[in-house]
């Protein structure tokens, strides 16, 4: 954030410098000093009435002031007069989405990205797609997503800010079949470990258990061991299991196939098994690939807990697909994520299946700082110290941090609606709201502690004991 005083001093020397004026105006906007920002933009436009950037940012200011219609009108003019100015189209896409016009938003978004691929905003694109689909993006038949899915969705969403467009994408289309299976495929993930804040212990665990074996394949094969196989990620909901899985695929430079429960389960007998087989088949043909199963405890449930044989056949199918003796899974890494590892059938934990376990704890302080930064992005937040706030959010998951921000934003929004102007969210407000949010991980740890204390004969939950500071 540019120093306002320095900019003012520079402008004192060069008062008609339009780029300087725009920088100062942006600095005022960042501080939500809207009047000062408006004055500065108008000064810039007085110097250069056709400046597309100034006109676009002025439209952004109008939007913050709640004058959306006027903002849209101005943007239309900018787009008509300067059709090659990408940021105007991008802002127009955001306003169209807010105005419940997802198809218009998509057109404007495509236009912006066509002009300048660096403008690609994955988060905005996801919101446009969700708005077009008319749902939350979760199961189309479930008005209320499961708590697990909600937690993971919140944590997964937080990393999707603007990453660079992958210029190496050769456009080859391996995944036409994903339309039929309705799978969330990414050709190559746009995230790797460098882009995931914190979680160093989990990353190291993944390097040791997954990445090094894959990079030193011949060494492992010399000992009769196959690289790849299955890895189970477990931990409290909303703590980044999906995110770290994507990052793992990014590190491997492999394709990432994310499979949700609703994409497999089918009311017709035999259909679920068929879908599961198709998914594995697709992954094998697309190797190297990372096949990620969310809520894997539903697909791999303890057969003792199942009342009907219909569920058991699906589990048997899953076991067969994982079984490296009967299936050709070379080059396919299967990652499973679960909040309830204790409900998995023990057959899944045998060698050749999910034989490596990684505990994903709540985000550490570094990761929380990163999450706070991402949560604050695009919101009217003033005086934020992400590190200081993160320190006060011990045991908070990504979803809990989002809930903290949501509460603060709602309070600020109520005040803004009654006062008629933008009211920024402050650090103090966020700290106050954080006290009202009960960390969701604590409930998980209450259950996990019981399993770690009383059902840990195999040492499965040693990491949980270690995290809780309990001696074995």
């Amino acid at each position, binding site marked *: 954030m540019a120093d306002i005083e320095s900019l003012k001093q520079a402008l004192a020397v060069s008062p008609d410098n339009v780029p300087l004026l725009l920088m100062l105006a942006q600095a005022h906007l960042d501080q939500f000093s809207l009047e000062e920002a408006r004055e500065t933009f108008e000064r810039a436009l007085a110097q250069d009435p056709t400046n597309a950037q100034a006109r676009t940012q002025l439209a952004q200011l109008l939007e913050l002031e709640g004058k959306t219609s006027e903002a849209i009108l101005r943007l239309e003019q900018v787009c008509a007069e300067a059709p090659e100015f990408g940021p105007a189209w991008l802002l127009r896409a955001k306003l169209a989405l807010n105005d419940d016009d997802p198809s218009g938003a998509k057109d404007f978004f495509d236009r912006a990205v066509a002009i300048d691929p660096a403008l690609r905003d994955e988060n905005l694109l996801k919101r446009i797609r969700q708005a077009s689909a008319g749902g939350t993006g979760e199961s189309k*038949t479930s008005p*209320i997503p499961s*708590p697990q899915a909600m937690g993971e969705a919140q944590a997964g969403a937080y990393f999707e800010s603007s990453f660079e467009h992958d210029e190496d994408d050769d456009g080859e289309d391996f995944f036409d079949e994903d339309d039929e299976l309705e799978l969330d495929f990414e050709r190559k993930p746009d995230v790797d470990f460098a882009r995931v804040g914190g979680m160093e212990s989990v990353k190291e665990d993944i390097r040791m258990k997954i990445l090094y074996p894959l990079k030193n394949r011949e060494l492992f094969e010399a000992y009769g061991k196959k690289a790849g196989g299955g890895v189970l990620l477990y931990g409290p909901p909303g703590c980044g299991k999906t995110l770290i899985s994507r990052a793992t695929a990014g590190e491997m430079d492999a394709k990432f196939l994310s499979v949700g429960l609703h994409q497999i389960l089918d009311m017709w007998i035999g259909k679920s098994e068929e879908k599961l087989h198709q998914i594995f088949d697709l992954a094998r043909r697309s190797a190297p690939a990372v096949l990620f199963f969310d809520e894997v405890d539903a697909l791999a449930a303890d057969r003792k807990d199942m009342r009907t044989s219909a*569920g058991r056949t*699906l589990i048997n199918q899953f076991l067969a697909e994982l079984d490296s003796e009967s299936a050709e899974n070379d080059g396919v890494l299967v990652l499973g994520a679960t909040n309830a590892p204790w409900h998995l059938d023990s057959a899944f934990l045998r060698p050749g299946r999910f034989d490596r376990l990684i505990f994903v704890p709540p985000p550490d302080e570094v990761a929380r700082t990163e999450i706070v930064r991402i949560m604050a992005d695009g919101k009217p937040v003033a005086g934020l110290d992400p590190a200081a706030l993160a320190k006060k959010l011990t045991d908070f998951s990504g979803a809990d941090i989002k809930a903290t921000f949501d509460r603060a934003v709602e309070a600020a929004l109520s005040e803004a609606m009654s006062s008629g102007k933008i009211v920024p969210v402050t650090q103090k407000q966020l700290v106050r709201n954080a006290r009202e949010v009960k960390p969701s991980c604590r409930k998980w740890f209450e259950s996990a502690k019981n399993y770690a204390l009383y059902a840990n*004969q195999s040492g499965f939950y040693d990491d949980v004991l270690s995290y809780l500071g309990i001696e074995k």
Partner: protein
Amino acid sequence: MSETSHGLLLQEQGRLEEAEVCFRNVLAREPDNDFVHSRLALCQMSQEGRKKEALASIEEAIRLRADEGFYHAVRALVLADLHRTRDALDSADRAIAFAPEDSFALSAKASVYSAMQRWADAEEWCRKALAIDAENALASNLLTHVLRLQGKGEENEAAVAQLLADDPENSLAHVNAGWAALARHDHGAAETHFREALRLDPESDAARQGLLESFKARSWFYRTYLRYCFFMQRFTAGKQWLIIIGLYVVYRVAKEVMDRVHPVLAGGLIVLWLGFVMWVWLAPGIGNFLVFLDRSARHALRASEKRLGLAVGGGLCAGVVLTAVGIATAIDGLFVPGVGLLLATVPASLAFDNESRNGRIVFGLITAFVVLGAVVAAWDETVLHPQPGLGGWTGLLALPVVLATVACTWLGNIPSLRRASE
């Protein structure tokens, strides 16, 4: 797997909140699905503080399908949990009327009788349920429970052995075996069974509480208290009151007699009686304190149980030390707060780990009053009136503090101050 099946799986796994989400999703599409309403009721009744919601759900299921015996049986169980035992009995009878050969309906009636502490009737209906379905887990586990409560040791042992032989992987069977072992004062075997129960079902609170009791039973002090509890459990609440009042009457009569014979003997009897009262109220807290001191056993304690242990055990230790030193050195500034702390352990034993919110408030306030009284008296004896003899604030506060403590021993028998509201 449909969403209903997924919900049933989650329910079977004990993941009740997630199961509830699945069932509500189904009900959003099929609001007249009586089966799912009944499963929702079963989820809710197993969660703390949601019995009334469970009742609403099962009554909706009954409204949609009034002739389903299973739903009336579930309603009976919910009403029994809400302590509406007469209504529960009516509901159980209706369940049996609709499904006379349904073992679950018969075992629901047995459960209601168990809630009414009518052990013999509960046993009778358990046996009827098992005659129809020998694998009815609810009936077989309840049978071992009521046999133990009736003091039928041998039959209880046989029933437990049968349970374990039929299903050694059943957590509840091991819990019952654990309690049978505790009843015959074998805390080692009890600990083994409760650990096995927890291995099979780590989230079983019944198994955890049993394990805690077996840890506490390592001390003779607590073993004696358990014997007293097992003895009293055989009787209904009304009969327990009669026993307590009878003991008090005996104490008063004996004290009068001994006053005439020898005052020292009377004094000894008073100490014995007070010791008995304190022991009954303080034993659970002291037991928790002893478990807390064990580095591995302490993990079985919940946070509220730890607080109880520290408040009672810690208060008792500090109180005894201060009182003893105060007597030995004739320093009232130590003796008075020592006695105050000892008295405070009684309301404290009811304030922490109390399911009732009103109970926590009432006994918490009394504890605070007694502790404050002890602090003020200590200040009075040390600063204001350091001369020998109890006067000033100490004299003023002594009677109210003692009365408040005694009142706790009677207030603690009021169910609404001990049970969670529904």
